[in-house]
């Protein structure tokens, strides 16, 4: 069998879709982007299936770029990047298919989704820090325009805020990458080369690199003192923007964190402080979350809670923690995209997002409401959903690394679950009075729910499909 350059194909498809989307009119552009995300999802799933059959996954491709600087466009797919590719391709497909609940600016949103798709594929498959940085910034710029041009009333301020935080992060990332390049004895951008030779860097320089890169990824994730851009960005973004922002963009930072902890040996000595920071971040966000009345803001804060928990798993540094974090990224990406889609539909149907103004949605929009309940359960890690596997692995890892205290952040998740129960009972399940409906749920949104739910359950019921590959 001839080996196709699958990663190159997955990168070329969004570029072609971008060009076509710019040239075509709105409805055709929408079809193009649905097609391109669907093809990428099928390619990713075929990689997944073949990895199950062969028991391992390892694809790498390399293309010449700036040869005088030793920069190659290196791509690789290992288990972590495959899991994140599956997550991102599913979320992108669902976003392209059903995210445009508002049914406006088809052309613009299609072009920006194509650009973001390019960024997601490139970033999650990068084997090279230079490539990582390039796709990081493409993703940030695509997301900036998605908020800036497609969002709601206060989108300009939110988008500028987002851009300033994210560009600061990417400046730090660039600095960190350059420092790594010149401080490693071999002068390389290749992640595996750096990983094998990073122990030779003196501890002081390693700490400098670690702090700079940690700051960059922390802003993107986001963790507690750097999270201020996130609630506004989500509230003002369109449904598609929120789905991609929370589902995929925040994973850029988490993916970077995983890479950073695997790369620099010095990171182990900071892990306790970072775990504390992660726990503080989760609790801080959950205490803000329980004061929100806007469902979209609630889901936005839940992202910070989840990212704090994911950071806890990464900082544990052991196999359980790391793969728990990876699984949590998969699970959170799918669930949060589903939740934002549901919130977008609810806003569209009832014209309202305030939990005190929404009444009895179950009578008018039963599908949406029941799936909201399932989504909320998946979010707090209910058995049979992928979130359960993620939390189990992650907290085992955390307890292994930090002792009994490692399990404390679970309380943040449970508190979030309790508040989501309150939200559901307060605004959705009451049968005495109803909110007025403005519109109905279209079939494409229902397909979107179906796709996301399918993957949430498939990885909840059959987690061994992935876990067999890593053998923890």
């Amino acid at each position: 069998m001839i080996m196709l350059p699958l990663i190159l194909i997955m990168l070329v498809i969004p570029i072609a879709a971008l060009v076509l989307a710019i040239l075509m009119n709105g409805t055709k552009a929408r079809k193009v982007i649905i097609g391109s995300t669907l093809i990428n999802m099928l390619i990713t799933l075929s990689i997944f299936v073949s990895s199950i059959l062969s028991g391992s996954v390892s694809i790498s491709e390399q293309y010449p770029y700036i040869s005088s600087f030793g920069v190659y466009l290196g791509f690789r797919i290992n288990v972590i990047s495959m899991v994140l590719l599956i997550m991102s391709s599913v979320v992108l497909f669902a976003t392209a298919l059903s995210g445009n609940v508002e049914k406006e600016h088809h052309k613009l949103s299609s072009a920006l989704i194509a650009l973001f798709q390019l960024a997601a594929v490139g970033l999650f498959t990068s084997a090279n820090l230079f490539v990582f940085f390039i796709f990081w910034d493409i993703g940030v710029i695509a997301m900036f325009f998605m908020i800036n041009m497609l969002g709601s009333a206060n989108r300009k301020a939110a988008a500028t805020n987002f851009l300033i935080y994210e560009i600061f992060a990417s400046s730090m990332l660039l600095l960190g990458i350059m420092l790594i390049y010149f401080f490693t004895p071999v002068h390389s951008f290749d992640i595996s080369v750096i990983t094998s030779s990073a122990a030779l860097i003196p501890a002081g320089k390693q700490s400098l690199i670690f702090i700079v890169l940690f700051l960059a990824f922390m802003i993107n994730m986001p963790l507690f003192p750097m999270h201020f851009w996130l609630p506004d960005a989500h509230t003002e973004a369109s449904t598609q923007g929120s789905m991609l922002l929370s589902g995929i963009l925040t994973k850029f930072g988490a993916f970077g964190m995983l890479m950073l902890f695997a790369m620099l040996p010095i990171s182990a000595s900071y892990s306790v402080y970072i775990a504390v920071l992660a726990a503080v971040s989760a609790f801080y966000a959950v205490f803000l979350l329980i004061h929100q009345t806007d469902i979209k803001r609630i889901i936005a804060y839940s992202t910070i809670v989840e990212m704090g928990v994911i950071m806890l798993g990464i900082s544990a540094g052991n196999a359980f923690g790391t793969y728990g974090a990876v699984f949590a990224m998969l699970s959170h990406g799918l669930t949060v995209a589903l939740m934002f889609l549901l919130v977008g539909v609810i806003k569209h149907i009832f014209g309202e997002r305030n939990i005190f103004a929404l009444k009895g949605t179950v009578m008018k929009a039963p599908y949406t409401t029941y799936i909201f309940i399932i989504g909320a359960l998946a979010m707090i890690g209910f058995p049979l959903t992928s979130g359960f596997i993620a939390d189990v692995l992650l907290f085992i890892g955390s307890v292994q690394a930090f002792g009994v205290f490692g399990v404390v952040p679970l309380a943040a998740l449970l508190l979030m679950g309790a508040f989501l129960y309150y939200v559901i009972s307060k605004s959705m399940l009451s049968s005495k009075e109803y909110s007025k409906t403005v519109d109905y749920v279209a079939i494409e949104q229902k397909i979107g729910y179906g796709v996301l739910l399918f993957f949430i359950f498939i990885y909840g019921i059959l987690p061994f499909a992935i876990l067999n590959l890593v053998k923890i």
Partner: protein
Amino acid sequence: MFQIGVYLFGFIISCIAGLIATGIYSYFFKAKRNGFILSAALLILIAIASSYLLVINYSMVELGIIRIYPFSLLFVALFAIAMLLVNMLSYSNAKDYPDLPLLFGFSFIGAFAVATAVSILAVFVGLELLTITTSFMILLEGKHRIEAAVKFFLLGSISIAIFAFALSMLLPYDGQLALAAATINPNITGILLLLISMGLFIAAFGFDTALFPFNLWVPDVYEGAPTNITAMLAGFNKKVAFVAMIEVFFLVFFAYRSSFSEVFAVLAVLTMFFGNLVALAQKNVKRMFAYSSIAQAGYILVGIATASQLGLEASIFYIIAHSFMIIGAFAIVLWLESKNIKSIDDYTALGSRNRFAAIALTIFMLSMAGIPPLIGFAGKFLLFSSAISSGMVLLAIIGIINSFISIYYYAKVMNSMYTMKDEKKIKMDHYVMVVVIIVVAVVILFGIYPQPMISIAATASKAILGVS
């Protein structure tokens, strides 16, 4: 091979003579269209011929005063293209276009003299020629330009005077004033007179390249000049001055690199911060780009401050990159100015009024802010890498912080451009459109695949330092 080189050199010289002849013809016969076509064709020929010589790696001193080698050929080609773009911008916008080709011709001679100089005197004459012709160009459109023209002329004269003073101090040590390191005895480092001369050179070039303490003329002149000439000031004159600076410091004073490196590092930091911080407060887009181009000069200086081959390569790359980006940005500003759209508030809804212009301006601004995969990112990456590799980590950090600051004022323009509002569409002028398309193509293509331009910059930098 040798034969072709000589013929092509003769061809370039005759093309330059042709530029002057075209200018005279255009001036006396008021031949707007023919003057434009002839001068554009000659500039294209010069660019092609010098690129060809660059590709075959031709290197020779011709006529005893013109040094043809990769460095000079690269910049002759760049200046020809930049001048061509400015020429196109001027064609449909300048009121007295027939007067311009002659001035363009003389400016090009000045730039050619600087790029191919064998002695510092040629640099001196070239810069002087450029300054004087440019001040006439600023003046052409009428009386309201006098303020800008006089400011530019006075500051240019001061810079020339300082330059002459610095030259005179160099004379006792090097009677020929040659642009070559060998003639200065490296044993006499530490001689006060030479250090003073070097300081004066920094001041003289500081005026022309708008480094921090010497840049106060820039915003007024840039704003006061007709925008096609502003594009020329930022994309052509400033780059000529940078070339002169590189020649003088990397050929004559290279033995003193530890001294000038520190001075340039400090100036780079001050220039970047000044440009970016003041640009934050601007309401007028043209003025904002004027301050942003000051900051960009600071980035270029980062590479020069490292005083290494890598740094020089990065600076050359960024000089080329910024020359294109700023001409493209001012092209759009020029066209919008003719529609009476000037301040950031006026740019509201440009995205729905003319989508192409908005996207192009966005690409230029993102490139200037250093967002990949555009040419500005490749340039900044090289610049800051060179700073780190020479051990100037702090300089690189400050540079990166500055490119982070700059995103804020570009974001303000973008925010205002992409406010959806249906107003009547505005149509872009054809000549402006051609310029913008060329620049967008350069910014994107060399941003995605910078390797060819990096290797050309490496060849040029190695040629000037005499390493292989």
